[in-house]
């Protein structure tokens, strides 16, 4: 039954640097403060958060090394460590993941992203198009899964990867799994196919629950779970939340808006594009809770659930009814928002889950 409960994750992407997404990428700090991050991790453990996202990109430290350092300073929290196919050998990747599992006692999930900005991929020597990247990512995961299954030396010859006799001696170390939980970020048709084939959960941007339900049906039908990547602007009352949302974009200001005009021009991600398009609509309110107002300033991940604690619970269950069982949140700032979520929202969610589980129709 525990497995049926909703899972809540939080993003470390902007911890300690709330308005990070409003800055030009070349001016974002590449130096994170380990103590600040470690304190956030321990707070997340107290808050009942399942995992913390360590994002991948040229503006940041290496998510693996960073997760390992945080893992040795924490006890319960899982690390949702992001990787792109195309930056390392799948064999080395599995070796890194398994090493991280040994360091953390299995507290590692993987967020595989196909990437969204071809310009940045070229920094890493990756010159493939959107569709080719998905094809390569498919090959990448076939090799990874074969290594995790551990059924002898792995031979594979594809269009993008070739390995021969591959094996590694460091296993995935965990009490209950022989490979990490795999999250796949994406919104396109290819992302859905890939998630169905290789992932435990598709991480996707929100839409109105009904629209989303339609889009994710093939994923759910295949037994793969669906998680929402969404920001949270929750306050004691809905009016306070609306004020906070307005303040957020005022604070981000015109500079941030210019930054994201550029980001928008450089992305080939279906998800990012659709978030920007959604934000072009006359109304910034997709539903009573779902607000695109911050997207032009802080990017696609700033699509937000806005409201009171009760509103959040309502929104979360609307999405649960549409088939969503996991949520990956960002807040402004994260620490304050995560504490509010843990104190005011999460207990109500758990209570309602218990009620519906014990009801005859549950």
């Amino acid at each position, binding site marked *: 039954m525990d497995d049926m409960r909703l899972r809540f994750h939080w993003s470390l992407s902007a911890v300690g640097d709330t308005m990070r997404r409003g800055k030009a990428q070349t001016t974002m700090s590449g130096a994170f403060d380990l103590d600040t991050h470690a304190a956030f991790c321990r707070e997340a453990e107290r808050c009942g958060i399942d995992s913390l996202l360590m994002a991948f990109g040229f503006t940041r430290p290496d998510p693996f090394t960073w997760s390992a350092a945080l893992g040795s300073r924490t006890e319960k929290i899982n690390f949702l460590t992001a990787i792109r196919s195309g930056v390392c050998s799948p064999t080395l990747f599995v*070796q890194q993941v398994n090493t991280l599992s040994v360091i953390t006692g299995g507290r590692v999930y993987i967020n595989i992203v196909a990437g969204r900005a071809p310009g940045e991929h070229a*920094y890493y020597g990756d010159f493939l198009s959107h569709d080719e990247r998905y094809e390569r990512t498919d090959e990448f995961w076939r090799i990874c899964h074969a290594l995790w299954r551990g059924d002898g030396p792995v031979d594979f010859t594809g269009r993008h990867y070739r390995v021969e006799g591959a094996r590694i*001696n460091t*296993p995935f170390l965990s009490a209950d799994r022989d490979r990490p939980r795999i999250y796949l970020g994406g919104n396109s048709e290819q992302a859905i196919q890939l998630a169905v084939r290789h992932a435990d959960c598709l991480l996707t941007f929100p839409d109105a629950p009904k629209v989303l339900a339609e889009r994710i049906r093939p994923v759910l039908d295949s037994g793969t779970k669906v998680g929402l990547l969404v920001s949270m602007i929750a306050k004691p009352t809905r009016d306070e939340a609306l004020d906070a949302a307005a303040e957020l974009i005022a604070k981000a200001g015109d500079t941030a808006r210019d930054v994201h005009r550029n980001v928008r021009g450089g992305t080939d991600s279906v998800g990012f594009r659709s978030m920007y398009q959604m934000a072009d609509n006359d109304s910034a309110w997709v539903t009573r809770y779902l607000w695109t107002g911050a997207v032009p300033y802080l990017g696609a991940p700033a699509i937000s659930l806005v409201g009171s604690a009760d509103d959040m619970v309502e929104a979360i269950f609307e999405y649960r009814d549409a088939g969503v069982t996991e949520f990956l949140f960002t807040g402004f700032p994260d620490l304050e928002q995560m504490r509010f979520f843990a104190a005011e929202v999460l207990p109500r969610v758990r209570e309602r889950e218990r009620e519906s589980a014990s009801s005859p129709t549950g």
Partner: protein
Amino acid sequence: MATNSRMRFHWSLPPVAATNRLRGVNSGPVPDQAANLQGQLEFCRRADTLGIDSMLLPIGYQRPDPVTLAGVFGAATENLRFMVAARSGVVSPTYFVQQINTVSALTNGRVSVNAVLGHSSAELRYYGDFLDHDERYRRTDEFWTICDALWRRDFPVDFAGDYLRVEGATINNQFVSPERSSPEVYFSGSSEQATRITLAHGDSLLCIAEPPDELAKRVQPALDGGVEISIVCTQLSRPTRDEAVRAAYDIAREAAERSKNARQHFRRDKVESEGFQRAYELSERDSLWTTPYLWSGLVPYMGPPTVAMVGGPDEIVDAIFEYHEVGVSQFLFQGRPDLDTLIFFGEEILPRIRRREDASATSNGPPTASSAGKDGGHG
């Protein structure tokens, strides 16, 4: 000034429980990974307190990933640095620099790199690397050309080679260190190609130990080019030379019993590297003792890095200074058993080396004065 000219001593992290003196004969998966990691961490802490300069974290399919380990071990130590082994064919150079910079931020710059070419094509194919030895050198050169540019922060970095290409490369996290803007880089190898690539991109050439006079000739071009010479070998040190020799023969006998086919196995797999080739040749000479302290009796069973410096503290100190005379300034050791040897070196041998260095630094006499300053010298 004396401190800067001091020799530096590195140690190689043992793969398994550090008390097994036969490790390396038959390598298989480690039974308890978590306990082993803890054991390795303790080993690093011990090296840290004993004044070892850096710990090599080797790379290979038998091992955990060295970059991931470096940050974790780094957090548990104060002064010990971590020499992360790296292959050029398994990771984007941009991502690699990002990883090393992350380790530098976690350790305040206590990270260096051991660039290895890979000595087994079969193993490299596990990782998707199908190039031959010479092609790997050319790719390695491209790899480090990109890395160097990223460390100079010559952004954006554009490079198009035969094997690697990046465009507009930028990374925001910097190499963090009180002294340097990039890590020290050690290139492993003994061929002319290795020397060339070290001169182009490295700080030190890391060679497998061979007799000093033979080594001297080989490394002269590297010394002339201004890079340091480091040697890698096993140290079989005991309180007296007799005990050390007896221990060496015991280990060889037990190793022989354990792995009858080891010689053929190693020869078949690993003959591509010139340094390895030469180590095997040493082990096939009429005498396994190529100098009074350099013994190649373990090489057939445990591989080339087990060319061994054998002796009591005095012989080991003399041997180290013999290498120093021909231009070697850094030593990378492993021991059998690992932990006991590390402690014995740190407590009994290293202090003698430092005293002798200090003595020769304060004497302004002719070169022969240095040998007069050595501890208790009998040859």
